[in-house]
């Protein structure tokens, strides 16, 4: 049987299809209350844990201006985006393994909108988690000294970071065979932020871990946000240098992951 010929659609159609898919993804998130509550409760729990349980012990080692909470907020945002990536990978893997994509292909919709919908929904979910981290941070004593322009820069960095992580998660979801495997595959994304300057400065870590913490992609993102919000980085490097590194790292990850995910999606949904 030959595939139904579909004429090329305008960007407006594509956007309309993608928004429908975003709605579908977000509705599915809300209808899984355990996962939804966990996604919202996790940032709050981690914030309280690191600020109140470990904060006093870390403060001497971190030497942060205005307490440990001012140091930790950017790290928690990055960590929560890592957890969010797990959700995205599972959602993509579920779609690919449940046969729903084959149903969508029989409809007059743009093929890419399925993947784009998942990515945009992931961005929305993660931005909500980020807003929650910021709100709880402000509640427990985080006091940024940023100007509106700095805030805009920090938000742009968060959007770039979450987009790159979402596309990377989509790649994991497309490569593995099952939702369970997708969850396992993204475990590294949740663990890597711990080996950065997210929670403690690289200088306080064991000698073997210092170069890893100082030179991995998550550190420049965290330091850029820290620099924009608090007026200084914890590494002592210039804000511009950290921001440039972050944009190069995650710009490259975004382009590579989006290209790979698109190819994988096309490859896995091709007519046999």
């Amino acid at each position: 049987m030959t595939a139904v010929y579909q004429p090329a659609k305008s960007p407006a159609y594509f956007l309309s299809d993608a928004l429908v898919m975003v709605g579908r993804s977000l509705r599915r998130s809300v209808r899984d209350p355990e996962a939804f509550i966990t996604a919202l409760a996790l940032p709050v729990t981690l914030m309280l844990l690191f600020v109140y349980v470990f904060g006093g012990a870390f403060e001497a080692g971190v030497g942060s201006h205005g307490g440990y909470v001012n140091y930790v907020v950017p790290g928690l945002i990055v960590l929560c985006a890592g957890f969010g990536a797990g959700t995205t990978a599972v959602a993509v893997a579920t779609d690919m393994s449940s046969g729903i994509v084959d149903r969508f292909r029989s409809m007059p919709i743009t093929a890419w909108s399925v993947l784009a919908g998942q990515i945009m929904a992931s961005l929305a979910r993660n931005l909500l988690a980020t807003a929650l981290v910021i709100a709880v941070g402000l509640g427990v004593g985080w006091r940024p000294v940023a100007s509106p322009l700095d805030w805009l820069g920090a938000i742009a960095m968060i959007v770039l970071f979450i987009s790159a992580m979402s596309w990377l998660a989509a790649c994991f979801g497309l490569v593995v065979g099952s939702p369970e495997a997708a969850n396992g595959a993204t475990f590294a994304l949740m663990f890597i932020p711990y080996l950065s300057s997210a929670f403690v400065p690289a200088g306080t870590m064991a000698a073997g871990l210092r170069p890893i913490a100082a030179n991995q992609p998550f550190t420049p993102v965290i330091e850029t946000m820290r620099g924009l919000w608090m007026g200084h980085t914890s590494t002592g490097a210039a804000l511009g240098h950290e921001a440039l590194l972050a944009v190069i790292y995650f710009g490259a990850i975004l382009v590579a992951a989006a290209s790979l995910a698109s190819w994988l999606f096309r490859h896995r949904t091709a007519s046999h």
Partner: protein
Amino acid sequence: MTTAAVPTPGPRPAPVPGPALARRPSPATALANSFTLAWRSVLKIKTNPEDLFGLWFQPIMYLVLFTYVFGGAIAGGTHQYLQFSLPGVLVLSVVFATLGTGMMLSQDISTGVFDRFRALPIVRWAPLAGAILGDLVRYVISILVTLGFGYVLGFRVQTNVVAAVLGCLLLVAFAFAMCWLSAMLGVIAKTAQGVQWWGFLFMFPLVFGSNILTSTSSMPGWLQAFVKVNPVTYLTEAERALLIGGPAAVAVERSLLWALGIFVVFAPLAVAAYRRRT
């Protein structure tokens, strides 16, 4: 129109002997049933990759993370912090391992395995007892992995072998009490994910609202008040005393009292919930 003849009520036929009317099994049989199902529970560990991951890699991950990533910031050096944190990581690993009991039970009940067990000539409570007995092996594995890897990293018991063994037995006793809470959740919750969720809701404040990884004095006053009455704090203090030295009597006594209290409250609740569900 003819009416159907109504049969005259005669003597009721003798009931067919079935599982419900089987003779009450002897304690030896009941124990044998429980141990058979405990062995099944042990065998299930190696077929469940998530469980294996939890038992082997979680303690290792916690030790590496807290010792090498956070140790310098907390204690100024990794070795000093390893000596302080390993007893805490032992407690953390074993207490979180108790969640597996509830998850396995929930899985077995929802997949219909327990309905099959009811058709067998075994004691009704044997599947529950078997699951809990089998999980004691999981706690021992968790303890051995944590201690073994701790030794590789440089941890050293500074008391003696007897004290260290007593520390391990105390952990198993506390875990045995906690697993009844997990078993109750496993029977009540609809899914294994539900058990995990509710379990974390109960255990996260208990485990992290304690002195397992940092000293109580570094926490804010309102949190210190909770930490000082938390059973996990007493257990951690007992483990530190038995593994690296210090006064142990009060902490051990309070840990055992808490374990007994948890058991007395949650074991009957778990059994009652199990009876209702099956």
